[in-house]
């Protein structure tokens, strides 16, 4: 029992509920349970460890893996140990097979079927989940179905209503609990640091001190708790950042006891790594690969590649530059962006030198139309034709160039690079395009050719 609580920390009340409901071996199980709660709140872990602890016959079905009812029925039967044929096409076959298993058992044996990611059951025929909810009644066995999902029960619509399951909710871990859980893995964090660095024994002892880790975690959570409460993600980020936290100590630049200095060292790093949250780009490996190893060169290469990739992805600017588009292609892309985000009506005013009387009405138009939520830049790109693209392209390009096949090929390239979405029409006159890059990207591209996009965007005039 103690072991169970140790294995699943901070979930005592849920564990107690589950243990009580599932009861003793010879007691009847409830009809069905419904466990809900946000991602990474220990739902699957709880139920798995409870079932293992109780030693009931059980099967855990992942509803992503078993995407059709047939696969699901068969995986249930395989796990529950039917030695007969496990072909099962319909619910009838399943209940019959389960009954056969149940009747062969000498005692009143409890069986549990767990459906992980049960929200996927909604994509199947509705009768499947309805039937699973009353599986106990259908097969007259001591069988219980447990549904695990991150949705609340209200998100499961049943046309005709069902036999309601008993619901248990898993709240998210709060800051203290997150601290406690991550702190449990202190050892593995230290090992992670040690595997990346060669460390003196003296410093090693320093690193193993729990106070150091606790301090780090406090600093870490103060930054990361606000945007993210996902334990798995936080653990991953903490692992990455703890290495950086320890670096100055390893290099003997900062004393391990000098907390304020360490905080000053880590806070900008944490801020920047906040950008990497969820993106799972593996952060830079050790900056000094251990010498003498054969694959040192390969490793550093690998590191370089990862480093550049990371850089490219972290800021849109470098990402935009990484395409290294030709000069005219950049202008084509800008033209495409302008065509997508400007209303065609305003083209005349934006791109022609002599647009006559229009200017007079400008103030009125401005006063009327600028509702921030209805800006074109917020509604998404509109489609445009090739004619319009080329017209804007020639308007924003100062020099005069001919319309060559080279130029048209650039458009095809942009489509291939998925910077512009185009229809697969062969006829150039009817095909429609849409620019699918964001403002950050386009302004980075425009900067390289010295073009001010804002000046030509209707929203910002």
């Amino acid at each position: 029992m103690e072991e169970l609580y140790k294995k699943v920390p901070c979930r005592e009340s849920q564990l107690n509920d589950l243990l009580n409901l599932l009861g003793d071996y010879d007691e009847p199980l409830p009809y069905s349970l419904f466990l809900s709660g946000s991602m990474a709140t220990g739902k699957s872990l709880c139920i798995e460890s409870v079932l293992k602890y109780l030693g009931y016959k059980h099967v855990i079905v992942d509803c992503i893996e078993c995407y059709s009812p047939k696969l699901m029925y068969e995986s249930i039967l395989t796990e529950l140990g039917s030695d007969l044929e496990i072909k099962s096409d319909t619910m009838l076959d399943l209940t019959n097979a389960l009954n056969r298993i149940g009747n062969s058992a000498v005692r009143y044996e409890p069986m549990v079927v767990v459906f992980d990611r049960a929200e996927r059951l909604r994509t199947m025929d509705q009768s499947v989940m309805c039937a699973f909810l009353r599986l106990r009644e259908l097969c007259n066995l001591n069988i219980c179905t447990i549904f695990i999902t991150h949705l609340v029960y209200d998100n499961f619509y049943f046309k005709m209503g069902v036999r309601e399951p008993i619901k248990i909710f898993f709240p998210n871990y709060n800051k203290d609990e997150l601290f406690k859980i991550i702190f449990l893995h202190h050892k593995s964090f230290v090992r992670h640091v040690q595997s990346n660095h060669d460390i003196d024994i003296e410093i090693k002892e320093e690193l193993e001190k729990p106070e150091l880790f606790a301090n780090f975690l406090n600093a870490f959570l103060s930054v990361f708790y606000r945007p993210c409460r996902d334990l798995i993600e936080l653990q991953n980020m903490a692992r990455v950042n703890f290495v950086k936290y320890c670096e100055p100590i390893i290099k003997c630049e900062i004393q391990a006891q000098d907390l304020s200095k360490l905080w000053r060292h880590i806070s900008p790093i944490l801020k920047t790594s906040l950008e990497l949250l969820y993106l799972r780009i593996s952060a830079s490996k050790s900056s000094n690969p251990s010498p003498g190893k054969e694959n040192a060169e390969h490793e550093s290469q690998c590191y370089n590649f990862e480093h550049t990739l990371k850089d490219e992805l972290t800021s849109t600017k470098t990402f935009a530059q990484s395409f290294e588009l030709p000069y005219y292609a950049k202008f084509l892309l800008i033209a495409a962006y302008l065509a997508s985000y400007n209303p065609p009506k305003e083209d005349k005013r934006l791109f022609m030198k002599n647009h006559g009387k229009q200017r007079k009405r400008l103030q009125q138009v401005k006063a009327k139309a600028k509702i921030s939520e209805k800006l074109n830049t917020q509604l998404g790109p509109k489609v445009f034709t090739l004619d319009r693209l080329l017209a804007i392209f020639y308007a924003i390009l100062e020099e005069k160039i001919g319309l060559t096949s080279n130029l048209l090929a650039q458009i095809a390239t942009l489509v291939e690079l998925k910077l512009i979405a185009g229809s697969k029409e062969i006829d150039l006159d009817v095909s429609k395009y849409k620019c699918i890059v964001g403002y950050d990207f386009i302004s980075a591209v425009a900067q390289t050719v010295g073009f001010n996009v804002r000046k030509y965007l209707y929203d910002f005039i």
Partner: protein
Amino acid sequence: MPEMIGDNVQIKLIRKYLKLKIVENNVLFRNHNQEKCHVYDIIKRTILQGESHSALVIGPRGSGKTTLINSVLYELSKEVDIASDAIVIKLNGLVHHDDKIALKSITAQMQLENAVGDRVFGTFAENLSFLLSCLQSGADRRCKSMVFVLEEFDMFCHSGRTQTLLYNLFDITHTKQAPMCVLGTTNRLDVMELLEKRVKSRFSHRHIFLFSNQDVEVDGREAPARSPLELYKELLVILLSMPACIGRRDVEETPRRRKAKGKTSVNIDELIQTDDSSNYTIPIEDLERCKVDIKQFRLDSAFIADWNTHIQALAATDSVVDSIEKFCYYINNEQIFRDILFQIVSHLSPNKPYIDATDVTATIDKTVAPEHRVKLLQSLSILELSLVIAMKHGMEIFDGQPMNFEMVLHRYTKFANANSSTQTVPRPVILKAFEHLQALEIILPVRNSDSIYNASDTTASRVQKEYKLYTLAVPIEDINEAVKNFKALPTEISHWYNNSVV
């Protein structure tokens, strides 16, 4: 010390017995005597007189339709020999909605698989009449009566396909080929509309309604309906009390004398024990089905008496009565009430040998108003909650127009810029938080393109994720509740929430 251990074992046994009673006992049927007699009559006449009948039992979910039929069959089995005189075939719409599967199951339940063998039948009717003829070809050429119980009857009325099974079954009852009784249970009042014309004309139109607030007939005269509160209170007592007759047999032997002992020891129990003692027991058949030996429940009768007093006292407690009333106010479903009792009973342990009134109230509160959505909102991160708030504000300003990520971001950055204390979070992280909300179905994508924004857009289905339109899928009240009780919510956020427009 040995006394203590004895108590531990006893409380475990009580827990097991009550759990069995709550979950497995499906023949106990209370109230609706008239309807019960009706069904009883129909089945009895089919079996004994060889008449053919059809009927539909209609009632809301959890009103006891299945229990009614089960209890009738159970009581009949005491009077007539169902096993040799009749065949009971149970089909469930959830499992047997396909006619072929249903026929297979019918064959199996008639135990005629061998007779059918590899025979190939042209039509469904042919197959069914073959099955019937197989039954008739017994030694005395007398056909066994058949009782068909079709649960989730509405599932058999599949639209689109022909209702072959129903047609054939009703046709047999209509033409009286063989004594057969077809009983359907459903919770759809409009079930008759679903039937095909030819099916409808063969159905006897015998409807048996089970509504909880019906007037009941007591001793031949109409009595006013009993309130659901009383019914559930009675159910609580019935389901949680222990039968005295399974008390330890070391002192007395016959049930009568054991009751007498109970009488002398505890006076309060006198009433229940003499009247309803049979109500508290689980029928032997149920126990056998569960492979449980009745003899293992060797309880001290004084202990049982104690327990029953405790339950009586519990049912009389004001807070318990209040919360049962609350339950009746929200839900009228016996299954759910049984689930609640199951949860309460499962809390029993040697350390906690009695049910507290607070247990009952807490469990009922949890079931009636789970507020999981509020809890889900409260388990969001601050950033995610801010996005929800931004979205709520935006939708308030634009009269519930759906919003895309860019609009929400715009609103959020406006707030974040106004408050220097909030950390700035990069755009990809916000987008990820937005996607998280979407995965939790707190926001839902707008499917139909009747919105003003993309009315002209032909490629609306292929917009980028930043521009996909979403609506809030949680009621404003839930957000209010969540923000009000959010633990450690920064003050500027609650302030922002309350002063709607920034």
